[in-house]
C-alpha cells in the first residue's frame, strides 16, 4: 500500500489565506499608487471604518457558507435594524441601549426562523433566506411607511462614526475598528476555540456522514444562521451610525458578503474556509470598490464588476477543487 503525499489541508488553507491577503495587498497598493495619502494611518483607519459593515457581514455569512448554505436575508436585516432603531429610539439617547438589545432579539429571531426552516423543513437555504429577505424588507418598509422617519441620537450614531484622535502610534482610532476587532475575535473563537468550527466544516462537507457520526446537524445549521443574523444586526448598527437612516441601507450587502467569503477562499456549498477568508475577502472587495471610485467609474458599473468577481472567484475555486481530485 502506498500513500501519495499530497498537499495537506493545512497547506491548502494556507494558500487560501494568502490569496485573500495577497489580493488585498495588491489592490491597496494600487489605491496608494493613485492616492498616496491612503498610506497614512488615519486614512487606513478610515478605510477600515468604512469597510467595517461588510467585514462583519462576511464573518457572519462565512458561518453559513461553511455549513453548506447561504444567507440572503442579512442585507434586509441590516435595513430593518437601521429603520427600527430610528423609529424606536426616536432621538431619545436614554433609549439607545435598550433598543440595541431589542434589535439583537429581532435579528436572532430572523436567524432562528432561517435555521429552523432549513434544518427541519429541509428547504434549501437560498430559497428560505430569499423568502425571509423579502419578508423582513417588506415588514421594515411597512413599519417605517416607506420612508426614513424618527431620529438616531448621537450615542447611537457614535458606534459607527466616533473617531478617537491623538491615539499613540496610529494617530486616530475609529470606534468601528474596535468593534471589528472584537467581532472578528469572537467569530474566530467560535470557529477555532470551540468544537463548533469542526462540526460546521463536517456538516458542510458531508451532512449525511456528520449525522451518522453523531453530529447535531440541525443545531449546527441553526447556530450558523443565528450568528449570521447577529452579524447583520451589528453591521446595521454601524451603518446607521455613519450613513444615517435610509430605506435601502442594507441593499445588496448579502451578495457582497458572499462574494467576500469566496474571494477569500471559502468554498461555496461548504466544508472549506476560515475566518481569514471572510476578513481578507471583505477587505479585498472593499478595496476594489474604493479603487473603482478613485478611478471614477460610474457607480452602476460597480455592481457589474462585483458580479464578474463573484463568478470568477467561484469559478476559480471550482477549478482548483477539480484539479485537486
Amino acid at each position, binding site marked *: *500500500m502506498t*500513500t*501519495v*503525499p*499530497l*498537499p*495537506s*489541508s*493545512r497547506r*491548502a488553507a494556507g494558500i487560501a489565506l494568502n490569496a485573500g491577503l495577497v489580493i488585498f495587498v495588491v489592490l491597496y497598493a494600487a489605491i496608494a499608487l493613485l492616492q498616496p495619502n491612503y498610506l497614512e494611518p488615519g486614512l487606513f483607519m478610515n478605510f477600515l471604518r468604512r469597510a467595517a459593515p461588510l467585514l462583519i457581514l462576511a464573518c457572519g455569512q462565512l458561518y453559513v457558507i461553511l455549513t453548506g448554505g447561504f444567507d440572503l436575508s442579512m442585507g434586509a436585516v441590516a435595513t430593518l435594524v437601521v429603520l427600527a432603531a430610528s423609529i424606536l429610539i426616536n432621538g431619545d439617547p436614554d433609549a439607545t441601549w435598550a433598543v440595541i438589545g431589542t434589535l439583537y432579539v429581532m435579528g436572532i429571531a430572523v436567524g432562528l426562523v432561517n435555521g429552523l426552516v432549513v434544518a427541519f423543513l429541509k428547504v434549501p437555504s437560498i430559497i428560505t433566506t430569499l423568502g425571509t429577505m423579502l419578508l423582513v424588507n417588506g415588514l421594515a418598509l411597512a413599519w417605517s411607511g416607506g420612508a426614513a422617519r424618527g431620529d438616531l441620537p448621537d450615542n447611537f450614531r457614535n458606534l459607527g462614526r466616533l473617531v478617537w484622535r491623538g491615539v499613540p502610534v496610529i494617530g486616530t482610532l475609529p470606534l468601528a475598528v474596535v468593534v471589528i476587532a472584537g467581532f472578528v475575535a469572537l467569530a474566530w473563537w467560535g470557529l*477555532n*476555540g*470551540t*468544537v*463548533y*468550527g*469542526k*462540526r460546521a*466544516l*463536517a456538516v458542510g*462537507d*458531508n451532512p*449525511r*456522514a*456528520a*449525522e*451518522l*457520526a*453523531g*453530529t*447535531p446537524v440541525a443545531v449546527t445549521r441553526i447556530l450558523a444562521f443565528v450568528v449570521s443574523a447577529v452579524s447583520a444586526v451589528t453591521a446595521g448598527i454601524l451603518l446607521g451610525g455613519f450613513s444615517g437612516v435610509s430605506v435601502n441601507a442594507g441593499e445588496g450587502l448579502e451578495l457582497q458578503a458572499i462574494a467576500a467569503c469566496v474571494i477569500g477562499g471559502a*468554498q461555496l456549498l461548504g*466544508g*472549506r474556509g476560515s475566518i481569514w477568508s471572510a476578513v481578507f475577502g471583505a477587505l479585498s472587495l472593499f478595496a476594489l470598490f474604493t479603487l473603482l471610485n478613485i478611478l471614477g467609474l460610474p457607480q452602476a458599473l460597480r455592481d457589474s464588476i462585483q458580479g464578474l468577481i463573484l463568478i470568477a472567484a467561484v469559478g476559480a475555486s471550482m477549478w482548483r477543487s477539480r484539479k485537486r*481530485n
Partner: protein
Amino acid sequence: MTAALSMSGISKAFPGVRALDNVDFDCLPGEVHAICGENGAGKSTLMKILGGSYRPDAGTIQLAGTTVHFTHPRQAAEAGISIIHQELSLLPHRTVAENIFMGREIARRGLLDKAAMRRKAAQLLGRIGAEIDPQALVSSLSIAMQQLVEIAKALLLDARIIVMDEPTAALDERGSRTLLTLVQNLRREGVSIVYISHRMPEVMAIADRITILKDGKKVWTRPRDAAPVGEIVRAMVGRDLDDFYPAPPSSPPGAALLAVQDGTNAAVQDVAFTVRAGEIVGVAGLEDSGKGALAQALVGDAPFSSGTITLRGKPVTLRAPRQATAAGIGYLPGDRKREGLALHQSVRDNALLTLRSMAGLLARPQGGAFASNVIDGKLREMDVRAADFGQEIGTLSGGNQQKAIIVRWLAQASDILVFVEPTRGIDIAAKAAIYETMRSFADSGRGIVVVSSDMPELIGVADRILVMHRGRISGELPRGASEEDIMHLALGLADQPHREVHA
C-alpha cells in the same frame, strides 16, 4: 431452432475488476432462461451489455443469427430487446398511456392522437391480462401494476427478448404470482425471457434453463431438470475460505449487551436477537433482505417503529444516530464516501468527528482527548497510513479511510459497533487488519454486529450468523456454517430439505 439471442465470448473489464470473462449465453424463442449468481457475479454487467449500456471488450452478440453491435440503449430497444429494471423508469405524474407511448407518441397531422394511444394502450394491457385504466396516473398504481405497465411498454416495441432483473424484489406474494403467470403467457407468444432472480422457488417454477455466473465466469448452463437447488447454490458460492481470519475467541461470550425484541419497521419485521459481550454477530442476506435496514435501525438512522431495544438490560430509544452514539452504539456505514467521511477534512478531523460532536459546544477543539498527538497515536495504533494526518482523508486509500472511521468509534469508547460491509472494495492487508481489530474489540468485552454480503467474511469472522430473508430473520447459524447453509436461509429455503447440498 436458431437462438433468438446468442452472446458468445463476452468479456468486460473495469478498472481493477474483471467483470465478465469469456461468457457464453443464449436464449431460444419462447424460452425462459434464468441467470443466477451472487452479488457481483456479473449478471448486471452482462445485461447492460445486452441492453447497449456497456460495450463488451470482446465477444459477439447475435439476434436470430444476425450479428449486432449496440452503441446506445436505443439501438438495443429498436432491435427488440427490452430490459425491465428493478427500479422502474416510469414518470409518476403521467398517465399509464402516456408512459407506454413515451418517446413513441402517435401523432395525426402533427397533433397527439390521444384516443388512439389510449386504445392501443388498453389493447396492450389486455394482452398481458392487466386490468389497468390507461388514463390512471402511474403514481396511483401499486409497484406490481407499474411493473405490468413496463412490460406493456416493452410489448409496444414488439420486444422479442425481455430481460427481467429481479422483477419480484419489490412485489408481495400476489404481485409475484401475477407476474409469473404473465411470464408464462409471454413465453407462449414466443417471447424470449432472460430472468434474473435470487429467489430459487421462482427460478425453479418458471425457468426452462438456468445459467450460473460466478466471479464474472459462467459455471454452467443446464436444463432445469438437471439443476437441483443444491447444485445451483453450490455453483453460486463454491470457493475456498481464505485463512486470514482471526482465531475464534477462547472463552464463551459473556452477559447480553444488546437485545432486540419484535423490531419492526417498513423494511424489517419481528426481528429479535441478542449480542453478548465478546461476540461478533454476523448478519447475512441478499440485497433486498432487510439486512441493511436492520443496521440502520440499530443506529437510529431508520428506527424501528415498534419493538424494544435493551442495552445492558436497560431499555433505550434510538430515534436518531446521535441518540445511538450517546447510548454507546457506533456505526461504520456501508457507503464510505457518502455516509462515512467528510472527504475534504483531514484524517485527524474525521477521526475526531464523533468525539467533538458529543462534547459540550464550548469544548476546545484541540483540548485534552482532542489533542493532535492523542488522536495521532490512535491512528498509528490502527496502522492508518498517511504522509500527514493533517491531509485530506479523500486522498487516502479505501482501507486507510475505513480504518480512520473505526478509530473514530474506538476513540468514542462505544460498547457496540455496527459494521456494514466493513471491507467492501479494500485490499487484503487492510481487510485482515480490520478483522483483527474487530476481534480484539469484541475480546475486550464489547460486541459487534457485522452486516455483509461477503459470505466468506461472515463465516470467517462472526461467532454466529443471523440470516435474513424478506425482512425477517430466517435462521441463525453457529460458527462453522457453510456458504451453502447461509444461502439456503437467505433464499428462503429453510423448510426445504437440503440434503443434496451435503451429498
